[in-house]
């Protein structure tokens, strides 16, 4: 069975305006809309396309976190994942522990591929995929904008600072999805109904053999320094004069 593991992180929705709590203990998440991390949605779409091309047999969606994560896993099932694994915990899971959990699941599921979003839009860490690849001792192709599977290899085009880099990697491997890898499909109503019948297994941390460790303590949260609003100029002439006064034109 050729299996692809996909990360599904529950995060504050892309469109929510983030505010820091006045007491500096975190950001306000009560009552805000939660969604699948957009990069994970792209990761899932890619896994589904690989399966639809007949290059994989099963797509397994994985989420780590509190009970509410099951909402996002149900959405992943509605998109087309075959089954879901929920590693349930209320603990803060740092990327290294998330990677250890994925490593345990990759071994258990004998995965041929793990596709993760390149970063989550809450902590913006951009670490878990690379850490999983390290612990798994397998290749990593991060920031992917194109994936082509041929037999037990993959050609991956990566978005790097210089342009586009192509790597050939042996499978099993870890791929992290960048923005332009694909456009995720919309979920249709009948698929939501069908998703309710798909298997969603809940595991605890003991079942994957990971005890979370606090390596980094968040001491406080601050709002970012604000730029002060500048001036509006009436025409190009005035703009150029203003720039010249600053030695910029």
């Amino acid at each position: 069975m050729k299996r692809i593991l996909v990360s599904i992180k529950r995060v504050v929705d892309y469109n929510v305006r983030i505010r820091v709590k006045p007491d500096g203990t975190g950001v306000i998440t009560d009552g805000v809309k939660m969604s699948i991390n957009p990069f994970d949605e792209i990761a899932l779409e890619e896994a589904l396309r690989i399966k639809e091309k007949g290059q994989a047999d099963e797509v397994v969606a994985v989420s780590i976190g509190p009970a509410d994560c099951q909402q996002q896993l149900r959405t992943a099932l509605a998109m087309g994942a075959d089954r879901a694994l929920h590693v349930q915990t209320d603990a803060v899971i740092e990327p290294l522990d998330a990677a250890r959990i994925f490593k345990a699941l990759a071994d258990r599921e004998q995965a041929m591929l793990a596709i993760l979003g390149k970063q989550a839009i809450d902590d913006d860490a951009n670490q878990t995929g690379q850490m999983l690849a390290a612990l798994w001792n397998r290749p990593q192709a991060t920031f992917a904008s194109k994936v082509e599977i041929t037999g037990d290899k993959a050609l991956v085009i990566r978005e790097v600072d210089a342009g586009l880099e192509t790597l050939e990697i042996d499978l099993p491997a870890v791929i992290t999805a960048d923005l332009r890898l694909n456009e995720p499909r919309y979920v249709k109503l009948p698929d939501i109904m069908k998703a309710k019948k798909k298997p969603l297994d809940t595991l605890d941390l003991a079942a994957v053999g990971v005890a979370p460790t606090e390596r980094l303590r968040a001491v406080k949260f601050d709002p970012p320094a604000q730029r002060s609003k500048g001036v509006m100029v009436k025409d190009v002439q005035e703009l150029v004069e203003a720039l010249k006064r600053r030695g910029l034109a």
Partner: protein
Amino acid sequence: MSKILVIAEHDGSKLNPATAKCVACASAIPGADITVLVLAASAGAVAAQAASIAGVKRVVTLESPAFTQALAAVIAPAVVSVAGDYSHVFGPSTTFGKDLMPRIAALLGAPQISDLMAVESATRFKRPIYAGNAIVTVECQADSKVVATVRTASFEAAGAASAAAPIEALQLTAELPTHTRFVSVTAARSDRPDLQTAARVVSGGRALGSADNFKILYSLADKMGAAVGASRAAVDAGYAANEMQVGQTGKIIAPELYMAFGISGAIQHLTGIKDARTIVAVNKDPEAPIFEVADFGLVGDLFQVVPELEKLVGQKA
């Protein structure tokens, strides 16, 4: 004392300016003892450049033909083989560092601080989260190693040293994997300044309307000696190449001057430019959020404004 290992980013012959910014960040740690590690097929030229950065105590090199390209899976075990004595391992928050550093951290069993933007102490640092909408102060344990990617836009590059630091070639003992192979890289050859380090940046959004229309920005950029950037919307639409994207998931830059044409100013874009010294926004929508952060705003049609600007810049007042 903090022993800090900085991983050099380079193209085989030239040290990337991001490395001097990592050194500047490392120097902010009290009692910093900084070593730069150069991994290359042939390390000499790059090592010499690293040795002349102020604050660098020594440069160590590891050479292998396998380091001709910077493949994270190949480099990481080599870094780990020399990282034993160090308390901190730093790399730049470029695609090179973002790819490599977490792999090193996992092999070391150490936490990583991504996009380190300020040093409070040897164990306490600030970093942005939620696309820069919040800044978190994190504390790591004094007795454990910590890995970080340094947000280069937050640091001025360290200057030149008065005397070059010693360079030592180390023996490569780590076994390097062969499961990851470089095939090719396609980069638009450009005579323009590099977007990441340019003092001036001219940038376009979806309002440009086509790749062809972007030419007016290139023309203005050339007159001003500027690099050219783009919003995500413009890159997604195919008007500009991916390496031109500025923002949360593209490049985070801090030029002297950033000029945004037809960019509305989504929060994900603003997070990539808010360290710019001066921001100019030109947009036909007076309500565009970009005007909230611009030092100078002009409501107008960019197709009229850009050619007019090109005529007026560089003229004596």
